[in-house]
């Protein structure tokens, strides 16, 4: 085959490669392990922002970054709100995580205390600790740009992972479980 024929095949090869790439991306989007709008977090590998937050019913006391640090195990911090539809979507998975022993701490983001309490009463409360971020300032310090968002904090207080959007069983299996094992 001469050079001219090879060059004629080049567009087909490029289209083929693009097709494979698009298929892989769509497949990962379907599984929920890839979100084209998600952003890298500059906090990864850095200490979590420090905060002290008040309690959120049904928990009487809130929690602080120092308490996350002192938990002795990796903590998954989940920002949620009763007004957030994808939060309800991920709730079953959060319940599963809590049952399997993951330290899941919840922060109600810009929510009315009674609305957040009602949400947890209706869907169940997966959170070992619970706090309220009424103004959303702590969330901004974490770089939250939409609820739900989850942050994995290791036992030394370093942010290891951020997931923007609902946690699905596929994300738990593919990403969260290996990370929990790595930082246990």
């Amino acid at each position, binding site marked *: 085959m001469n050079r001219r024929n090879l060059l004629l095949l080049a567009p087909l090869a490029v289209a083929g490669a693009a097709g494979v790439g698009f298929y892989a991306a769509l497949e990962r989007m379907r599984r929920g392990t890839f979100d084209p*709008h998600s*952003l*890298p*977090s*500059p*906090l990864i590998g850095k200490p979590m922002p420090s905060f002290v937050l008040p309690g959120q019913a049904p928990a009487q006391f809130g929690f602080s970054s120092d308490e996350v640090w002192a938990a002795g195990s990796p903590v998954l911090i989940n920002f949620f709100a009763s007004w957030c539809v994808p939060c309800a979507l991920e709730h079953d998975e959060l319940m599963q995580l809590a049952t399997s022993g993951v330290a899941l701490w919840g922060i109600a983001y*810009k929510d009315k205390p009674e609305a957040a309490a009602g949400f947890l009463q209706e869907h169940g409360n997966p959170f070992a600790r619970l706090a309220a971020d009424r*103004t*959303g*300032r702590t969330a*901004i*310090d*974490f*770089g939250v*740009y*939409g609820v739900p968002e989850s942050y994995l904090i290791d036992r030394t207080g370093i942010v290891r992972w951020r997931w923007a959007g609902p946690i699905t069983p596929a994300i738990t299996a593919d990403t969260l479980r290996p990370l929990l094992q790595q930082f246990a």
Partner: protein
Amino acid sequence: MSRLLLVLLLLAAGPALAISDPREALPDPAQEQRAEALGSQLRCLVCQNESIEDSGADLARDLRGIVRQRIAAGDSDAQVIAWMTSRYGEFVRLRPHFDASTALLWASPVLALLLAGALVLRRRGAAPPPPLSAHEQQELDRLMREDV
């Protein structure tokens, strides 16, 4: 007459203010101007293609408030931008910083121009096609005659 009226009305309309709620604005007009200039360089993370000054999203309003708080507290423009990028990353800047990771982005127009220039020069420098052979010339003459 109606055309003149239209021109006058258009002139009188003035620019649309970025923030719709005047209660958000800083009392000092110079500081407010700085806040608006800064905010228009910061991306609203919710909509991703609007600045926080243009966006109606709740988070954008919170971030506009923080930009104004920091300016009122005496932060420089660079300090405000650093505050934002330490939380939301380089993506928050609508005008990305020039560094190793964005060098290709900034250089891409120049690279495209150089590539196009190289292609043009190569085409120009190519040898002209060889003259027609006797047979080709005959064929061409025949076709031209047929056409007439």
